[in-house]
């Protein structure tokens, strides 16, 4: 269910305009509101039609605020992460280069954000992967949670999980090594 509401913001409207009247030419409020609404409608349309849907969204323009929320349908985080999980520490293209290269090299899956690393979708569930498992490129192998944003950790290439370097529930920083992948 999608819920779109429009409500006036909390900003105060100044009451004493006497001084200002001498110096400024106030515009009709209605046209300003129309402009804000147009702006807001454009923004919301863009957000609804592009990329993964956010769990909560707040659009604010001056005195008008629009909040859009998508109530959780499942407890498990859904949808792709807003940021690529194959970014490596310094250059965005390192991962691609590594993925292209054949051979027995071991590559490292790193955290794409600072947060808490989880190996399973929920405390009762089986872990996404165990050491020795084969994974395909793009397969989810964990989660890093930052401020309730569940960001999937994905294998940046096909391979075998050689070693899992961090425990479930560990705090990790951006770029921290989470697991090693070997040849498929």
């Amino acid at each position, binding site marked *: 269910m999608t819920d779109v509401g429009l409500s006036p913001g909390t900003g105060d409207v100044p009451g004493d305009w006497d001084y200002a009247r001498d110096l400024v*030419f106030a515009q009709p409020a209605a046209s300003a509101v129309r402009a804000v609404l147009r702006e807001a409608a454009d923004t919301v349309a863009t957000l609804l039609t592009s990329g993964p849907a956010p769990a909560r969204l707040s659009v604010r323009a001056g005195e008008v605020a629009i909040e859009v929320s998508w109530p959780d349908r499942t407890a498990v985080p859904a949808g792709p992460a807003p940021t690529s999980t194959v970014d490596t520490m310094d250059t965005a293209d390192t991962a691609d280069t590594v993925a292209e290269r054949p051979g027995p090299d071991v590559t490292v899956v790193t955290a794409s954000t600072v947060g808490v690393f989880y190996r399973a979708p929920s405390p009762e569930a089986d872990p996404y992967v165990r050491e020795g498992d084969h994974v395909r490129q793009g397969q989810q192998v964990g989660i890093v949670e930052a401020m309730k944003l569940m960001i999937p950790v994905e294998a940046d290439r096909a391979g075998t999980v050689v070693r899992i370097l961090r425990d479930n529930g560990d705090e990790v920083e951006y770029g921290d090594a989470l697991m090693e992948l070997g040849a498929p």
Partner: protein
Amino acid sequence: MSTGRRRLSTVLIANRGEIALRVARACRASGIRVVAACSSADRDSAVTRVADRTIHIGPPKARKSYLNAPALIQAALMAGADGIHPGYGFLSEDADFADACAAAGLVFVGPPAAVMRRLGDKSTARAAMAAAGLPLLPGAVEPVPTAHEAALLATEVGYPVIIKSVAGGGGRGMRVVHHPGELADAFAETTATARALFGDGRVYVERYLANARHVEVQVLCDGHGHGVHLGVRDCSVQRRRQKLIEESPAPALPDTLIDRLTGAAVRGALATGYVGAGTFEFLVDPAGRFSFMEVNCRIQVEHPVTEMVTGIDLVSEQLRVAAGEPLGYGQEDVRFTGVAVECRVNAEDPDRDFAPAAGVLTEFVPPGGPFVRVDTHAYTGYRVPAAYDSLLAKVIVWAPGRDTALARMRHALTEFRIGGPGVHTTARYLSAVLADPRFAEARHDTHLLDDFALTTTTNDGTE
């Protein structure tokens, strides 16, 4: 903001560069633990040597690191911080970030989110200041929705006019219009730029002052309804609306005008429930009339000149006020002594239209001596990253009078040695500006640098 006291024991610095180091020093002076948040490009930055802990928050791209609110708040919570100092730029004036900090139980070192929201929107800020009795330039308080309405308004207030983004800042998202025929294009362009830069295409129109000085008032307010001003700064030396040289006090302005400016700023701050350090920017015309421009709800790059003439550590005051402490002093306790000047030394090449000239610094020897202060994160061997703004160092000098302060600054800039392959700085350009008679005699306005050529350089004692 609640008026209750909240001890700050650990603060995460959500910024980089010289201001991160500046904030870290203030924290240490106040007995506060420092958590540095750094991107991949800043893992060797100076603040990490001063910090008690450094957390790697993201890749170089600011959107994924210093603008990444969830990562910053997550890092603060992981490090056990009870507050976040946002510095300037990045998220420092983002009311939603301030709200998110509060929701996570963190003290945001800055004004309350509602105040920031109201003053950050130039339309509501102008309305609030008009209501508080501050003079505005003739123009619209409300955003102007169409080019047609903008044209009617421009005719009413008289050309030239300036079209400004409601959400804008940092000198971006504005355009001067001299003739009615240019207005429709300028309106469309400013709207598009504003939408691209700030995600908000609303603009307003006001009369443009051609020969004005940029004079701003530093205010400091606690959460108990008390506020003082810490004098004025003149920031008229700008290139494409980016400040290069700032000084306090503003030279060649009558005391009565300064009293009216500072009085207006404090009135505006208290009327809007401002808390913390803030800056009220004004334009002053040659006849001594002044008009409110905008409020900056953060510490500013040029805050050191105010510190030098008042002896007040502004960042430490921010931390005290954020912890709920009362100011503990009144206006009569603030004393002003001498003149302070700041020059921004940027890693830019003046001979190539100020293109960023980043690289590794093989030589970095800042000036010194009495009353010379250098705020910088750079050092010999430092790699200036290309991902961020080009500010390399701020040179600040103090002297009893303006002439001696300017002389001291000229010598300091000459002494400053910065070198490396491909590295250029604005130091020599700044020396040339200092030597310009219009600036030296304080006859300049914000257009001083419009037609300023480096060929006017007079070299001061280097040969």
